[in-house]
């Protein structure tokens, strides 16, 4: 148990931490604009087949991540539909850092969209009307009225993206592989450690690590949220 208390991180842990943070942050930041857009569309616009689109968006949520990863593989693999096309452009996604990010994005996207949608739905439409009467363009209304008022939801969506991605395992290992320094995030390193008898303490340390990160993320988001609320009320 003494290893448990070693303060410094081992090389393996550093690497996993770095990969995890990079993947999660990229995932959260890259998803954000799309999640905001999709959430807004679902909340404010009526179009044919909207319910189907929405249901479809939520598929990654209901499928075991391993399956999601497998489907991604089928699509983006060298022999896959998109993958073979991308190959001709010299782009290869599967089994790379990019794949880890993509897997995280796909898996966490429904959560982010849902948070944004829910928040936008609760934004008072009458304020958007008021902005329109003042001559604001759609974009201006969106960015100056809707987005700031839905901010708690957007923040929540961002955070969900980030944390879900921090914990993402199944899709990543299937689609991006478990490659040290490249796609071996904390959960994957944790898996590897758990696969090896006698590495319990390493596993525990990795677990604690991910908990610590999530704590920091939660506290930071809570702080931002509080500041926002203070601003508003």
């Amino acid at each position: 148990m003494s290893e448990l208390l070693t303060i410094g991180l081992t090389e393996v842990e550093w690497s996993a931490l770095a990969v995890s943070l990079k993947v999660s942050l990229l995932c959260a930041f890259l998803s954000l604009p799309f999640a905001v857009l999709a959430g807004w569309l679902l909340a404010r616009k009526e179009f044919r087949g909207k319910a189907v689109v929405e249901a479809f968006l939520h598929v990654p949520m209901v499928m075991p991540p391993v399956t999601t990863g497998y489907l991604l593989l089928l699509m983006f693999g060298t022999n896959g539909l998109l993958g073979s096309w991308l190959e001709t452009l010299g782009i290869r996604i599967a089994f790379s850092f990019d794949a880890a990010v993509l897997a995280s994005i796909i898996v966490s996207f429904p959560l982010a969209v849902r948070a944004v949608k829910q928040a936008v739905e609760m934004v008072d439409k009458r304020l958007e009307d008021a902005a329109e009467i003042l001559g604001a363009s759609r974009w201006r209304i969106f960015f100056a009225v809707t987005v700031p008022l839905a901010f708690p939801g957007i923040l929540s969506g961002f955070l969900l993206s980030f944390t879900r991605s921090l914990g993402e395992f199944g899709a990543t290992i299937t689609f991006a592989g478990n490659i040290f320094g490249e796609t071996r995030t904390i959960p994957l390193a944790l898996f590897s450690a758990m696969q090896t008898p006698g590495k319990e303490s390493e596993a525990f340390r990795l677990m604690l690590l991910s908990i610590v990160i999530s704590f920091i993320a939660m506290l930071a988001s809570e702080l931002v949220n509080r500041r926002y609320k203070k601003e508003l009320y």
Partner: protein
Amino acid sequence: MSAPVYIDIRSQRGNFQLAVKTFIPDGIVGIFGPSGSGKSSLLKIMAGIEHPDNGQIIVRGREFYNRSCKIKVPARKRKMGLVFQEGRLFPHMSIRKNLLFGFEDGAAIGLNEVIDLLEIRHLLNKKPHQCSGGEQQRVAIGRMLLSSPEVLMLDEPFSSLDQRLRRSIIPYLIKIHQKYHMPIWVVSHDICDLLMLTNQLMIMNNGQVVGNGSYHELLFDSLATSVLQQEDEINAVRLPIYHIEQVNGMKAYHYQKQTSSNYLLLDVDQELEIGDQLIVSISPRNISLSLHQVDDISTRNQLAGEITSIKERGKKVFCQVDIGFSVLVEITRSACDKMGLKEGMNIYCLFKSSSVKILSVGK
């Protein structure tokens, strides 16, 4: 254009039907009607944030809505500036940002002008929820003024404002109108405020326009009457000042070009000059008619005039008297009989200087 706004719409909301077919004249128009008569609904449709079921809307030559041609100009392109009854300030922005939301550099009306008029300088850094009801209402008015609308629509803009503020905002609106020739439509429950702004009224009842025209016409219009007779009648006129002199320690304001003995003895707080305009309002109930001048009475204004018409509405008798401008005088039937009043008769209108409400508009 003689009739710059044409509205012909129908809109069913639950069991309420709005069915308006009317012209709205240019200028300042007061919209008046009981609670729930469809005033706000009409303005929202004009602004373009609600749409009728059917019909056509043309404002100043632009077709905003036409069901049959499928025209539906979006609100942001209409420039119909509606100040909502409920304010609708943006809660996440400071008052300053709220004010500047629709403001573009080079706009005719300046920020400081509006801030000073509405007395909201001390609020600039506050958030709307930190402001009182009346403060929010003022900011909403200011925000709209600064967004350079082509038509200004105010839905109960004075409801939470005290007299002093009303008395400063009303002349300002008139000035803006004179300067930019911007049509202004004002919904208010206070007919007195409305009449200070304008003589042109549109009366609504039950989702319909039941009267449209000058106040004096409408007062005796059978349809509009049902709405107006719930209210106190008001004479409100805008008078140019041609001459000012001192009479018995009071200022006498001459409102006719030719010098005559008909002038107004008034206590005006402001220092007025020749050429300024005065809005005076006085209730028909506060004017007495007398066959001759009366001495030993505190009533200072005793203006000679001629009865141009005598009309009855319900139990009341209204004499229209020309004293250089036309005033309505309400008297009782018994007084009318006793004094033997007739059209064409010469008569004196007596009213106290203090019963005249005064607003000055400047030049």
